[in-house]
């Protein structure tokens, strides 16, 4: 099998799915389309929702903090790290939508470190804790984007730490 093509050089059977959704869904007519644009309607609904975004971002940061507290109490293990990773991964995915792209970058660096480390549970606890502290601080201080020099410095610092840690690990291989 080719690297990313299921069934590329194997025998394969082609199966027609028993039903398709096309028969269940009606195409809107020109008069309906003139009155209703689904993408614009969704964007308008998101705009109405956006008043909640700052509060949601703070709660996501609190969740990360709670997960990290378990690491502080019980030590850094695969079990205690997993909820921290999940919380950071949620932040990575949501931060741009919630209006905090710089926080998303910090969370992405943490996820990259955990994804790429040979054994993330063996990373120095104090250094891993810096990512959590930075994310929480950026949310608390409203360091949303490139207009925050302090936020940018934090992300730059985390990027350097990530690079150093992963390079050190690759040298050990």
């Amino acid at each position, binding site marked *: 099998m080719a690297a*990313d093509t299921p*069934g590329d050089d194997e*025998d394969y059977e082609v199966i027609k799915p*028993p039903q398709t*959704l096309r028969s269940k*869904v*009606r195409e809107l007519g020109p008069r309906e389309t003139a009155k209703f644009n689904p993408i614009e309607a969704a964007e308008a609904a998101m705009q109405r929702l956006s008043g909640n975004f700052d509060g949601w971002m703070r709660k*996501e940061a609190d969740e990360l903090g709670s997960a990290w507290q378990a690491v502080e109490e019980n030590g850094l293990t695969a079990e205690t790290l997993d909820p921290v990773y999940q919380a950071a991964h949620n932040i990575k*995915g949501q931060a741009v939508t919630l209006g905090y792209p710089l926080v998303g970058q910090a969370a992405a660096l943490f996820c990259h470190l955990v994804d790429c480390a040979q054994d993330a549970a063996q990373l120095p606890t104090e250094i891993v804790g810096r990512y959590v502290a930075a994310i929480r601080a950026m949310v608390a201080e409203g360091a949303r984007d490139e207009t925050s020099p302090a936020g940018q410095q934090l992300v730059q610092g985390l990027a350097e730490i990530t690079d150093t840690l992963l390079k050190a690990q690759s040298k050990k291989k």
Partner: protein
Amino acid sequence: MSLDLASLTFLLVEDSAYMRTIIRTMLQGFGARRIVEAEDGASGLEAMDRANPDILILDWVMPILDGADMVRMIRSPNNPFAYIPIIMVTAHTERSRIVEARRLGVHELLSKPISAKALYQRVSSVILQPRDFIKTGTYFGPAPREIRNRQKIWQGGPGGNPDEKKSEAPAG
């Protein structure tokens, strides 16, 4: 092309309540009326039996049973939802994850941050461009692009290629 999605049931499986709200809000904006939600893969599987969804939207990273595990369980020829269109939502951006998603048998991969336009395109695609399924010893899922292209050649070419390794069967 705009579609009337009111007759479809969506199952949204995502551990973040906020992301569930965001995706639900977008789907409602598109005109979807029936959106069932679950917060992890295990409760997502239960919700499938209960809600009989037409389209599954699921997150990759979730506690208990993640999105990849859920797809593996669904994409089995004997599963009643084996052919359901799956849109996998993920904050993963690595190429290796995209390859893995294809191997799992998802129809569409949607990277976070999600825009209304990108989500609508994925939903429209699974409705308007239904895909045949492929079954091999190691894969069961929608036909990858390379095989779809070959099918077009067979269908369009004079007489096709008798050496192609292919058999056709109805959905069982």
